[in-house]
């Protein structure tokens, strides 16, 4: 039964991704869609940490930015091939996450929020300050992404890369959740001591998922750098971290499709709101507050539950 829901979901997503461009009136829409897809991939990773394992991170934009800068710096300054740079960035970010995860994930609730927030802000400030390496507030240019002589260029090609990556990410996430490792992660969320007494090393799993979600962020960051061509420290700001968490929570914690939906909504929203530019912050704030008040479980789980209830009633 679960198996079926998963295949249906994945197939539906593939079809939507494949057909969506037909509705784009101009290439600018590709740009918006690319950002939405990238954010969605990142949020699928972040959801493993926040939604499934129940550990908050208010600093994940920092890992995203580190991935982006690693790619830009390595390819530009040292002519490292983009794919190698992406992998190097992911390994470095994974190693950093691994080192800080152990002390950080001993913390709970607001203390964990504080610590991750601190990590994010420190990364942001370093990117801003070490201008000799990062270009400081002006940022860095990044070149096109080439693999084996094939160049990904233009928002149209990035759309297919982003779409393919999202399908892959969702598939991996759905697999993981329904596996021994995924159940251990969810058990950590449910009751740490309950998990420990049946043999789950909760520290190990918290560290593992923190590293996995950081690597997701780093990889997406690398691709983002190549796609936009210019990155600035702002991509690692506290506000960005908050935005990412909001995407996950808005779409629905502990729901892979929820994370995707949340990411897409919040990525598209600013473009819908450009007509009331001055009100953007007010509207975003209101949306954050009202979804959390009226649907604390997030959009997708809430809607699914209503549908199921209606079907049961019918």
């Amino acid at each position, binding site marked *: 039964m679960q198996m079926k829901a998963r295949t249906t979901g994945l197939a539906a997503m593939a079809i939507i991704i494949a057909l969506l461009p037909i509705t784009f009136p101009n290439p600018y829409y590709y740009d918006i869609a690319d950002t939405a897809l990238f954010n969605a991939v990142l949020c699928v990773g972040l959801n493993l940490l926040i939604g499934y394992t129940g550990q908050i991170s208010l600093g994940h934009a920092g890992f995203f930015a580190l991935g982006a800068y690693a790619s830009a710096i390595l390819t530009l300054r040292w002519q490292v091939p983009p794919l190698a740079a992406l992998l190097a960035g992911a390994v470095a970010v994974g190693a950093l996450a691994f080192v800080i995860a152990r002390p950080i994930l001993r913390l709970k609730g607001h203390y964990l929020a504080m610590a991750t927030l601190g990590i994010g802000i420190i990364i942001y*400030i370093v990117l801003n300050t070490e201008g000799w390496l990062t270009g400081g507030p002006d940022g860095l240019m990044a070149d096109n992404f080439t693999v084996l002589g094939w160049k990904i260029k233009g928002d149209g090609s990035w759309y297919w890369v982003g779409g393919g990556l999202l399908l892959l990410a969702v598939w991996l996430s759905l697999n993981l959740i329904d596996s021994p490792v995924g159940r251990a992660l969810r058990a950590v969320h449910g009751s740490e001591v309950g998990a420990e007494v049946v043999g789950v090393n909760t520290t190990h799993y918290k560290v593992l998922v923190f590293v996995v979600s950081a690597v997701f962020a780093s990889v997406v960051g690398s691709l983002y750098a190549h796609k936009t061509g210019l990155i600035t420290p702002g991509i690692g700001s506290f506000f960005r971290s908050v935005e990412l*968490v909001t995407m996950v929570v808005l779409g629905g914690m502990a729901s892979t499709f929820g994370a995707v939906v949340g990411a897409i909504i919040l990525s598209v929203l600013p473009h819908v709101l450009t007509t009331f530019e001055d009100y953007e912050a007010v509207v975003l704030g209101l949306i954050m507050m009202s979804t959390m008040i009226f649907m604390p479980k997030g959009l997708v789980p809430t809607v699914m539950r209503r549908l199921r209830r209606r079907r049961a009633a019918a």
Partner: protein
Amino acid sequence: MFAEFLQYLLSGITVGAIYALAGLGFAIIYNSSHVINFAQGEFIMIGGMATSSLVAAGLPMWAAVLLAVLITMLVGVALEYFAVKPARNADVVTIIIITIGASIFLRGMAQIIWDKESHSLPAFSGETPIHLMGATIVPQSLWVIGVSFLAILVLGWFFNRTLFGKAMLATAYNRLAAQLMGIRVKRVLTASFGMSAILGAIGGIVVTPITYTNYEAGVMLGLKGFSAAVLGGLGNGMGAVVGGLIVGVAESLGAGYISSAYKDAIAFVIILFVLFFMPSGLFGKRGTERV
């Protein structure tokens, strides 16, 4: 040499006093509701912005200050009523998003009501610097330190000597027991938001002549206040005050002796360092979690 140190120390204590007030605001709300109010920094911003615009509109300083404090308090109470209360039993992440949403909302409102420019206030008693063992200090710094100190004393008196203050402490200690004793817990919650807002506004008003203010000024102040509260141990009022002063002084010394570019990072480095070794802050409740 010493003069330089003293200079850094004095400016550190000045900002530290503001962080202490913000941290205290976090602590009061956390105690009564276990909510971390990420909009605490916006109270500071609103206090400063409102006073500045009211003075510009021609109100005498004292009236502008009173009115601004009142406005901020109402914002705090409204925040509790409309955003926090309806989500009473939600989990930590949900409430974090709500108060962050509130802070973004308030920032947006400030930008609409006022603008994106910097605003200032005249110093309360002139700008002539006072010399002290080779260091100089502007009179406004003394206002900041003095008013903060006074606010902390008044709070101490309130919590230890008044019935309502004791009721608030009792609620923090054991909500259910407090309720059974006839304490109206709902009122305690509302009051805690009102009081935190007042503290924020006061801090914002006294510091504006030195730092200026704008619609975004609350972000960093709020985060530093949160650091102060966590450093001291969440829910510990005096801890938050000490935490605020430590953060302020460390930041100022770090900016002076190490690197001014990393001024804002210092608070967070300290906090990470402390949390690594003391997971519930310097003076936080320790003990074995009950199973």
